[in-house]
């Protein structure tokens, strides 16, 4: 009984931190409509800065400690304001995906910055001055500091409520959450409003981080783990609902605490490790909530957003003769590559082809179907692990493993997709990310089956394919077939139905199209193609590791698609080629290639806020008179 009470209190303490991060994310999204991918990074910075500040001010006694925490949160808030002014302010009009990319670029940059300043070692801060003792609760010792944290959550919730409902600033923020353009047309300076909201959100994330210093060491992976926690909470609670975020944080905090508390339990002779479940349990909660209430516990359906006229793509036309001829010439040139290229060229080209297929499968969802996936690497990874496991654990021949792996990925995509297609827009994107994180957590932790963090080695192709040039030809044939098949599908009734769903769900409903079923099938198909890419990749490297399904792999895919242009069918392949080559070149030259990649993305986004293709269309397009 006492242990249940203590677990309950642990859960409350964790919930406070989760609430601080999630509520800032929710506020920022509400007003600016930007999903701030970098929110977890701000949280992580909060911990690092507080660690340094607290250590620096420690000699000043309790004031130094608590002052250091506040300074850290304020500093992160100020950084948030700076980010808003320097970067986000320039891209509010840009397509949603570009905004996401920009904030993801910040994730990469902040991570490398933290690595540069604080190094890769975990840093544990001092214990809270004045609250470093423990109290006795039902005969157990419970840290005083955790009791303090438990109080912080409701306190912040109350203050935010007052701020939003009892001040004019709050009224303006709530108005802007619904219609920021109209707020501007009524004479309110939106820039100030946006900057202040972003700064407040960043401050809350920084505060959440700073408050963790006495409990948790500063580590470099906290950014992505915090952002996926925050996504889950915001989705469970309902986008834009602050009480919802609080409720969701409580639920997730408690569920996790109890999983840790239960530990290993033998059920029917099988040892189930509940503590290992903590990494996935929140996603299970989310999945359940989304099925019952698709808009979150306290959320409301999002208004359907219409694409701006400049974002509507032109009708599909059959490939021109020039394009067909060009593709044939390119195909022949690629087929002959082993004859004239170096061994390194061939290896690099295998990567390029694999990622072209991966990017095209992501584009299949993002472009025609209009479903943005932040977690497409899950299916790439399922294909790669599927191939490896079938070969090594199930004893399949390599050829059979290669053929079966896409089905493994398709199965995973069908399972995840069943939930995802119930949502749209940002909710959908976040859910895909969450599922990818589940997949990653499983392969990362299941040492006995997937090899855990080390992955698996010895995944080599069959003897007749073992020579690189031969494997290259196989790769070329499979990837080209995949690309052509997807293209064909886009021109077929199924592809048209997908575009119809993207253009007007209302009209689909009115002409009897079962959109969810069509989208679910598309999700599964895209997963299969990504899985094929993953399987080819695994056999080309001879190994798999959890990295194949990490968030960064998903983002690589997004960058490739956006580089090439969402509105073109050949774009993803071009984007994949450019990206893979660029990454190969940069990564060979610097340790901080992630931040260089981030900077490159930022430059692209800021220089071409309409997107590259949008820019070209705008610059060279023919003005069209609307009657």
């Amino acid at each position, binding site marked *: 009984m006492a242990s249940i009470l203590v677990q309950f209190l642990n859960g409350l303490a964790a919930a406070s931190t989760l609430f601080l991060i999630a509520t800032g994310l929710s506020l920022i999204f509400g007003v600016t409509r930007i999903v701030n991918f970098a929110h977890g990074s701000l949280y992580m910075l909060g911990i690092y800065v507080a660690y340094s500040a607290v250590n620096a001010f420690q000699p000043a006694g309790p004031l130094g400690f608590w002052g250091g925490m506040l300074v850290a949160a304020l500093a992160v808030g100020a950084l948030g304001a700076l980010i808003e002014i320097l970067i986000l302010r320039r891209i509010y009009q840009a397509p949603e995906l570009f905004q996401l990319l920009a904030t993801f670029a910040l994730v990469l940059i902040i991570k490398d910055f933290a690595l540069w300043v604080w190094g890769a070692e975990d840093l544990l801060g001092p214990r809270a001055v004045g609250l470093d003792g423990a109290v006795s609760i039902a005969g157990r010792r419970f840290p005083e500091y955790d009791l303090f944290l438990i109080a912080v959550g409701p306190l912040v919730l109350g203050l935010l409520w007052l701020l939003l409902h009892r001040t004019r600033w709050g009224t303006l923020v709530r108005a802007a959450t619904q219609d920021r353009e109209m707020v501007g047309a009524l004479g309110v300076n939106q820039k100030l409003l946006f900057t202040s909201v972003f700064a407040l959100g960043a401050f809350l994330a920084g505060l959440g981080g700073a408050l963790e210093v006495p409990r948790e060491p500063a580590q470099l992976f906290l950014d992505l783990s915090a952002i996926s926690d925050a996504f889950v909470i915001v989705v469970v609670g309902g986008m834009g609902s602050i009480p919802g975020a609080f409720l969701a944080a409580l639920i997730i905090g408690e569920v996790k605490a109890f999983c840790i508390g239960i530990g290993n339990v033998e059920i029917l002779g099988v040892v189930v490790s509940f503590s290992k479940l903590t990494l996935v349990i929140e996603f299970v909660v989310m999945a359940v909530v989304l099925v019952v209430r698709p808009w979150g516990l306290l959320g409301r359906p999002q208004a359907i957003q219409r*694409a701006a*006229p400049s974002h*509507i*793509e*032109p*009708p*599909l036309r*059959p490939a021109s003769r020039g394009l067909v001829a060009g593709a044939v010439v390119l195909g022949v040139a690629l087929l002959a590559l082993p004859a004239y290229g170096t061994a390194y060229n061939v290896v690099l080209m295998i990567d390029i082809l694999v990622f072209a297929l991966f990017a095209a499968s992501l584009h299949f969802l993002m472009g025609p179907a209009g479903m943005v996936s932040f977690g497409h690497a899950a299916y790439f990874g399922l294909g790669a692990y599927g191939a490896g496991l079938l070969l090594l654990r199930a004893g399949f021949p390599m050829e059979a493993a290669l053929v079966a792996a896409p089905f493994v990925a398709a199965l995973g995509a069908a399972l995840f997709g069943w939930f995802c297609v119930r949502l749209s827009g940002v909710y959908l994107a976040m859910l895909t990310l969450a599922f990818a994180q589940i997949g990653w957590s499983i392969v990362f932790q299941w040492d006995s089956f997937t090899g855990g963090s080390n992955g698996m080695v010895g995944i080599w192709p069959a003897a007749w394919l073992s020579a690189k040039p031969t494997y290259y030809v196989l790769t070329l044939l499979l990837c080209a077939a995949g690309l052509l098949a997807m293209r*064909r*599908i886009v*021109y*077929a*009734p*199924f*592809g*048209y*139905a997908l*575009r*119809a769903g*993207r*253009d*007007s769900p*209302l*009209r*689909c*409903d*009115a*002409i*009897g*199209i*079962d959109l969810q079923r*069509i989208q679910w*099938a598309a999700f599964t198909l895209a997963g299969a193609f990504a899985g094929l890419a993953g399987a080819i990749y695994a056999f080309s490297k001879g190994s798999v590791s959890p990295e194949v399904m990490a968030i960064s792999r998903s983002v690589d895919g997004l960058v490739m698609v956006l580089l090439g242009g969402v509105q073109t069918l050949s774009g993803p392949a071009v984007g994949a080629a450019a990206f893979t080559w660029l990454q190969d070149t940069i990564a060979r030259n610097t340790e901080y290639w992630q931040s260089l990649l981030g900077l490159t993305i930022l430059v692209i986004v800021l220089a071409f806020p309409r997107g590259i293709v949008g820019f070209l269309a705008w610059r060279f397009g023919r003005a*069209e008179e*609307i*009657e």
Partner: protein
Amino acid sequence: MSAVLAISGLSKSFGGVQAVQSVSFEVREGELLAMIGPNGAGKTTCFNMVNGQLTPDSGTVRIGGAETVGRKPREIWRMGVGRTFQITATFASMTVRENIQMALLSHHGQLSRLWPRASSLHRAAAEELLARVGILEQADRACSVLAYGDLKRVELAMALANDPRLLLMDEPTAGMAPKERIALMALAGEIVRERGIAVLYTEHDMDVVFGHADRVIVLNRGELIASGTGDQIRANPEVRQVYLGSRGEA
């Protein structure tokens, strides 16, 4: 003539507010029925209960004798109900012809096909429909660059693609110029009479209401307060007071 749409005792409330209260009416084959009333009178709610977007608290909706309450909009479409929207909803990234082809593909249950080219299927049938609504020459243009009045015609052609027996038109002429309004409604009237389709429409333009409807029903605060021919409605003092205002004097 038999009733294509029969509504009886339909009620719906939202959070304690009674939006529609025991409304009953019928629409017969080849008949145009206009539903009018002040904003917030419950017209849209009524409409959405017929098309399946809302489930009534009580009452029945029968289309061709079959109960539709509890069915999804797309199932109701398969029972032969075409719809046009107040703000046009078409597939902007497709050509006019492809929009109609989509409705035909759906009607024939062919949307899961992965191989044939969609743009070559049901081409002739699509063009026939476009010719019927008078925009065949626009077949190859993108819907996103079409004039508003022509978009309304695209919607009408899509609604006709599954040989409907009931057509639901939500403010069919909203946002159109007076001359276009009359042309569109004359066209719609002609088509529905030749095919024996029943039409239920809402409208705020009194010329469109009194010039084209066979019968008019009036809703106010969720209740049906009047029903009859245009002249009867215009002469009804209660309707004049709550809705028509100075337009009733003409």
